[in-house]
């Protein structure tokens, strides 16, 4: 019953702040309540919470999702389990959901605000596997969800890790000819693969077109700096640079962060800095890696994210991402190299398949 009531209150909170307004005092109180429920229901979190000091609930390091079940319900009640990619650690982290209503609501509100504030009919070009092909990918689920809410037609152009270049070219040429704006949504490494697959072919997509990239390269393609990537994408697809944005999300979270530049451009506002804006139901701040206390604004720390939409798992997450907070938004500096030991020691852990 508590969970049911909390879920309703969280949905109300999301609805009340759909416009991006923040009420951090109420958010803090709700997060405390949610974390309390979770600490009572999840043994692994209870052990962590017992040792935590300070005014904030304990945050669970993302690696724990690889080793322990972190859900307030039994696995028989799982509706969906999203898993982290298996490229960097042998064991994949699992994020279990009893229902997806909070996830869906969070994704929809954030996407409407930062990707589709103009509510314009768009054709979706998805450089990701479909949720049917990748049922445990939270990204595939989210993109398919957005397709049901914000586009006229959508198609996936990634199959078994390869870009369907001919189909992609044909459909983009059709969009050019029909003057239908396109939203290209995909992972950074898929976009790099598309760059390679498309060769010299370039496009002038109709006004209103936009592009969202997400995720790192994870060793699946050559790496490009964010600005170099934007320049290439701009030149490839004919989409203005300010309408090319990055999304930041994690399997362990239910909410996403976006750069606000596309929204500002569509609404005719001045270009904001390229920093990630947390959703109003998310508390995100870098912490000192030793004390785990928040670091002052402008200083580098490791990013902690408290996501109210993670009701059935763990709301307070400690990532390995290095970040600084500036004017309430986040500059991501990069992902710390996990448990890769220093010097001539190594991640033999990974090489040999991690711990049992």
């Amino acid at each position, binding site marked *: 019953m508590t969970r049911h009531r909390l879920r309703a209150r969280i949905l109300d909170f999301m609805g009340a702040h759909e416009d991006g307004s923040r009420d951090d005092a109420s958010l803090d109180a709700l997060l405390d309540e949610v974390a309390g429920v979770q600490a009572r229901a999840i043994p*692994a*979190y209870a*052990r*962590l919470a017992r*040792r935590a000091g300070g005014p904030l609930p304990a945050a*669970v*390091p*993302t*690696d*724990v999702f*690889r*080793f*322990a079940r972190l859900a307030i319900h039994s696995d028989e009640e799982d509706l969906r389990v999203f898993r982290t990619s298996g490229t960097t650690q042998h064991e994949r982290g699992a994020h279990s959901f009893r229902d997806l209503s909070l996830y869906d609501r969070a994704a929809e509100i954030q996407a409407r605000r930062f990707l589709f504030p103009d509510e314009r009919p768009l054709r979706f070009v998805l450089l990701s596997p479909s949720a049917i092909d990748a049922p445990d990918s939270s990204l595939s689920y989210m993109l398919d969800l957005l397709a049901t809410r914000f586009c006229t037609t959508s198609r996936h152009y990634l199959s078994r890790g390869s870009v369907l270049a001919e189909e992609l070219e044909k459909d983009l040429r059709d969009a050019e000819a029909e003057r239908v704006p396109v939203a290209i949504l995909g992972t950074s490494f898929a976009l790099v693969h598309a760059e390679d697959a498309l060769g010299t072919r370039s496009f002038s997509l109709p006004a209103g077109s936009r592009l969202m990239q997400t995720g790192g390269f994870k060793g699946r393609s050559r790496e490009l700096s964010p600005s170099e990537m934007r320049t290439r994408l701009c030149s490839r697809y004919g989409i203005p640079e300010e309408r090319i944005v990055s999304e930041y999300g994690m399997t362990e979270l239910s909410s996403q962060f976006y750069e606000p530049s596309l929204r500002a451009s569509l609404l005719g506002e001045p270009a904001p800095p390229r920093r990630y804006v947390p959703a109003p139901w998310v508390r995100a701040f870098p912490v*000192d*890696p*030793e004390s*785990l206390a928040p670091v002052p604004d402008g200083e*580098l*720390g*490791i990013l902690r994210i408290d996501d109210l939409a993670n009701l059935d798992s763990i709301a307070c997450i*400690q990532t*390995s*991402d*290095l970040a600084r907070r500036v004017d309430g938004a986040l500059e991501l500096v990069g992902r*710390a*190299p*996990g*448990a*890769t*030991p*220093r*010097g*001539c*020691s*190594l*991640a*033999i*852990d990974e*090489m*040999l398949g*991690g*711990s*049992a």
Partner: protein
Amino acid sequence: VSLRLVDSLEDRLERALAIAARFEALGAERRVELLLAATARLESSIEPHVDELARTSGLRNANVRWGLSTTFETVTKDALTSIVRSAEAAGPKGSLMRPRGLHALILSGNVFTAALRALYVPLCLGNPVIAKASARSDLFAHLLTRALVETDPVFRDAVAVVTFSSRESDLVALLLGRCHTVAAYGSDETIRALRLRLGAGVRFLPHGHGLGLAFVEGDGTDDEVAAFADDVTAYDQRGCLSPHALLLTGDARGFAARLQKALAAASFRRPRGSLPIDVGAAQVQWRGVAQARGELFEGLDFSIAVERATRPRLSPGYRNVSIVGVEDRDAFIALAGSFGAHLKAVGVGGMRPSELSLRLGCVPRICALGQMQRPPLEAAWEGAPAHDGLVAY
């Protein structure tokens, strides 16, 4: 800058090649004398450099002093002579041992004193050495070469430390192209990249990724617990000989509780150095998993994880270590074998080191607890004798 460095490196290489015959002709006995004298000279003049060594290595002063003293004490006449004698004895009967020639050395920055053994072994065998150090931690190597040069002018040409980025591919090519042997310390990626650039006939001595483990039969004595704390504390557990986990047949939790006290004492004597933020991030993850699925014993600058697992989670170093219970010695041997050549040191308690024999292909240095980071100068390295690759017959 690159042009000046190319000129300088070119010059150093030419001089080292030109001195090779004279350096060989000095004879092993004289070279040993000079190395001993240089070590004494450096040891007596090192104190003013401790602050800077601490700053550049990231270690605290007390740990720097420990590293220096335990490294200097390995340089003895017996040790150096034994390296030469072993090399002579390894050749075919009646053959003459000769140095292979100019030796290139690619140093890594994780253990600041590692330059000493890496320089001294080829030098005592008569090979001139050009060492490439990383910019952030080349001080000890420079101090060492300065002491050598001040001891005898022959070292002005017979040894040099150069500092440049590995991305300076023209300099790397120049260095690798002129040397007869190349020893490289660093990540497996670095080793792979260097191997691809070597010319035919160059003898490559790679020292890639590695780590240490410890094994205790029984519960371990208090002395063994304290000795293991020293192994963890040394170089802030950043070396390829550093133990990431201790496996024991006795009570893991009890050992961890005793180790917590021992590490608190060791850390008081030799506090941990600064924690890089990316290591801090990894440490948070590692400790969090231990808390969630087992037990974590923490101190001011260390932690000990006890988890029910069949194999330990390797830690990010910086004084984070796992204690894992194993059924028996065979279980440890099986686990150690799974690390293959990457396992570079095994500290042993509850038995004599000589009683532990590991599987083929797994060739760490096996030693008593407390000695993991104190390899003798003449010790075999990764299963090969110290002179391996550095002499011809």
